[in-house]
């Protein structure tokens, strides 16, 4: 019986592949940095309409990564954290983005999403990013993960909604970074802090 040369062929080949696989370090999942131009996008909302970042040129925009099945997003919906800020800063465009992939148990269908939004008084558009392309472009990691884009299209804040991951702090101790960022932004002042560590569930890409 003669051995197949293909058997001996695989040994050095596999070893070579293993060796060269060491060269490819996977890139970090880094967020879009403050000062960078906000990546453009065009997405469909839960209302069926199409929204493009370019539609809001010359306006400040807040992006909120959301997932109603994430307890953190849900808590802020119940506490009206985002909807009150949206109401307070009427001149600012507020967009919710849900990057949950279809097929994941957290994915919410449009009719259910609309009912959820109605239940908690969320009147700003919520957009589907089913492929996760926009989430990856921004480096959205958590729900919620917040971005403020200034009227020139630059990112001026990237991070958490506030300093209270557990939701246990008394209201006077709770610092809402987006509130502070929008106040500074609209007054023409630099946003400080411009970046914080977001907390919450991982985005379900």
């Amino acid at each position, binding site marked *: 019986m003669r051995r197949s040369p293909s058997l001996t062929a695989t040994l050095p080949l596999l070893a070579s592949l293993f060796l060269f696989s*060491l060269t490819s370090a996977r890139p970090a999942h880094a967020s879009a940095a403050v000062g960078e131009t906000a990546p453009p996008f065009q997405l469909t909302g839960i209302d069926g309409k199409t929204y493009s970042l370019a539609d809001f040129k010359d306006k400040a925009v807040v992006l909120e990564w959301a997932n109603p099945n994430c307890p953190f997003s849900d808590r802020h919906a119940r506490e009206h954290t985002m909807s009150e800020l949206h109401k307070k800063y009427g001149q600012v465009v507020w967009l919710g983005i849900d990057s949950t992939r279809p097929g994941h148990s957290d994915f919410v269908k449009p009719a259910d999403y609309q009912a959820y939004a109605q239940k908690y008084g969320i009147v700003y558009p919520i957009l589907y990013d089913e492929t996760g392309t926009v989430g990856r472009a921004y480096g959205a990691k958590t729900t919620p993960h917040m971005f403020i884009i200034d009227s020139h299209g630059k990112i001026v804040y990237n991070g958490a909604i506030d300093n209270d991951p557990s939701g246990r702090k008394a209201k006077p101790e709770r610092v809402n970074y987006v509130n502070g960022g929008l106040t500074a932004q609209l007054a023409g002042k630099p946003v400080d802090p411009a970046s914080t560590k977001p907390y919450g569930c991982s985005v379900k890409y």
Partner: protein
Amino acid sequence: MRTSKTFLSLILALAALPFAAHRAAAIAGAWASNPQSRVRLITPWKVAPSPSPRETDLRLGLHFTLAPGWHVYWKNSGDAGFPPIVAFAKAPGLRGAELLWPAPQRFELRGGLVALGYEKEVVYPVRATLQSAPGHLLRLSADVDYLVCEVDCIPYRYTLTADQPVGTSAVPDPETVPLLDAWWSRLPAAADSLPGVTTDGVLEPAAPDTPGGAPVLEIRVHGARPALAPDAAPGLFLEVHDTFDAGRPEARVTDDGVVFRVPLKPHEVGKPLPRETTFAWTATGLAVRGQPFSLEARRTVRLGAAPAANAPAAPSARLALGSLAGPVPGALLAVAATLAALWLWGLLGTLRPGSGREALGFAAAAAICGALWALSRQVSFVGLAAVELILLAMALCAWLRRRMDHRRTVSFLLSLGLAACAAAAPWLAWHNRLTPPPTDAPAATGELHRPAA
């Protein structure tokens, strides 16, 4: 008389009952349970030693058990989640309860996200001091907020309690002592406390000719080797930094230790990199003199400056050779050696195989790696092992070549393997280079910076 004796025994038994009850019960608080996890407070004693006349160190623990697939978090939770938040209630005599962080694991999540934490079971050690013990019972109480995640995440909050009896002589709890010992031993050692081991870092700016290039944090653990345990490859865990997002660390082994390189992304663009900044890290999967360890350190690292501990006082001959080991001379050397090996192997020219030249060819191929290893000053064990694997496979081919009729096929495979070796070796030499020494004089004398606190 008999009645009085019986009565006395009864009185004594009744008097001892509360203490006996304390001794019988394990001093672990009740579990707070949910479908994903359960958590309790534990202490190592059934009866803790009385603090008088001196205060006593209390080794407490926050004990989690987790359902399969679920995890809780390290002090830097990674891309999502948050670490447990624990607030001990003030108790008379109890001071300074501090939650400590055992060496964590890395969990790869979908979408390129990373979580840092613990699965299956973890005891977060809690260091506290018992200054006094009014009465014989210390009532421990802590509010705990934590997040447990699998694919989904669920936050929980509990108030955990444990009643710790205090007596003149300590009585250890056989259930909790091994558990606490095991997890206290997983706390990383302070870097300064390890004889023969030092750690430092350097912030390397992005290469100017690399579009979108990222600065790199290079962290070196001098005097360490990789731990031999198969599940304990060297790992690096950075604490949250206020200026940078950290990417995945790459570890490699050098002549004098283990080096980690971490790509960084600044939170804000358009700002110059700080000339110096403080990073805190935990390095795991290391060993010194065969003893595994993990360490934690907080260091001020300087931009583009190699710390003094890494810069030899005078360039050695080996270092001078090492400076030549760039990709180009390495590649030229490899090509020359490959041609020599091929000739010796009888694959070039008219030489016929089977006259002992296989061994010469093998020796020549090994010489390629040996020479480049010496020139490159450091090659990772993994890389070297891969090259050796290829050589081994080639030796096998050379042996088979004499036994088989498929001489052309085997000859082709031999040359392919040799070429792979030759290509890999200079790459390894380049890959394993250290950050070049500083070019400016002040940086060259850079001292090892330690935080003030």
